């Protein structure tokens, strides 16, 4: 019983730590800009960001479980670098099809809304990138894998929300026309990224 509790504590601890890392330290949007195009698209088209984030987190969670068991088979191969993208794309593709079928069958209230954004939430660089980043840490435990996947999804949602709350102001007439909308939003994301870089404890190299 004690061993089980200790293993559970380690699992939850790993999951929490890697979740926090994925949300703040290695937020895919602010630290690597992976998925920024998706964020900008969802903000511009006024998609439901929390629903999009939920779809993405769920897909990431399921695909990371699959990838966790597939990766040890790919890792020893000398050409694994070339094999990883098609395998991960295939995994995401299968989950995408299942997600669509599940939505068609079970979603009643929000079916139309989910179907209109599911392709954006599932098939994007952030999902593929998160899987690749997770497997970069080859010695990661199952808890770390799950934590990183959930954290990436939550981090994406928070980043999208951060951009959404500012986007209307950044697209207003108060901003010079050349900067209005997309250019100033990128500068804004850059400043938030810089702030996060400082909050984490890094020092600027100049």
């Amino acid at each position, binding site marked *: 019983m004690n061993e089980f509790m200790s293993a559970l504590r380690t699992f939850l601890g790993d999951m929490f730590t890697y979740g926090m890392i994925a949300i703040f330290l290695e937020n895919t949007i602010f630290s690597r800009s992976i998925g920024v195009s998706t964020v900008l698209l969802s903000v511009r088209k006024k998609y439901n960001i929390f629903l999009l984030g939920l779809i993405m987190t769920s897909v990431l969670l399921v695909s990371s479980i699959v990838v966790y068991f597939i990766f040890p088979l790919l890792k020893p191969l000398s050409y694994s670098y070339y094999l990883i993208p098609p395998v991960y794309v295939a995994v995401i593709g299968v989950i995408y099809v299942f997600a669509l079928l599940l939505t068609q069958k079970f979603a009643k209230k929000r079916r139309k809304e989910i179907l209109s954004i599911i392709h954006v939430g599932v098939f994007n*660089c952030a999902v593929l990138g998160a899987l690749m980043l997770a497997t970069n840490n080859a010695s990661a435990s199952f808890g770390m894998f799950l934590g990183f996947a959930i954290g990436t999804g939550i981090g994406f949602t928070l980043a999208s929300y951060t951009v959404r709350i500012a986007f209307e102001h950044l697209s207003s007439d108060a901003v010079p026309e050349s900067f209005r909308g997309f250019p100033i939003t990128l500068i804004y994301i850059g400043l938030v990224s810089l702030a996060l870089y400082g909050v984490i404890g890094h020092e600027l190299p100049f």
Partner: protein
Amino acid sequence: MQLNKTFYERNKERLQKFNGLFMTNPVVERGFILAPVVAAAYSCENAVSLGIGFLIITFVTVMLSSFIPKRIPYTIRIILYALIGCVVFVPTAMLIDWIFEDALYTVGIFLPLLVANSLIVVKSESRFHKHQKGYMAVDVLSHTIGFFIVIMIVGLIREFFGAGSLFGVLLNQWAVAPALLMPFSGFILVGLLAALCNKIRKRIEYPRKKEEDFK
């Protein structure tokens, strides 16, 4: 009246297929494929590697994917596009590895990520595949070259002012700010470039508009 029109106004229709170079540039106008430009294009070598990678992967994938029949459901088509991208990725990565020794290591996950880039996953259906093959080829090529130009400009500026070198050759020792090599600088630099391009684009599109109207 025709004489008063600018070159762009007179040839707007004919220039449509070259719009990807500047007027609808995928990075600075549309905000697509930002990750490699912002996070990985901090040196000229990385910029060239990713630029070549993007050009080959996107061009060949979009062209090949146009042969996939439309009667296949959209969901499956999108997955097939990305899988074609994965197949094209293999020789492309080998080529880049052959040109630059450590490129695959320094660009990290950003090269394989190009297999699911927005031009393949989103724009193939909504733009490229709606045209004839010849027009589509020029259109895709102009978009990919447009990306190449932007990533090269960003790579050049960041390496020159961030590391004081160009393609690894030390040239600048008086104005070096290593923070330019960080992703946040990439965001700000691309944002400034996008604003500059917006200004020029407005001038091309509305040449007779007064300066105050642009503010």
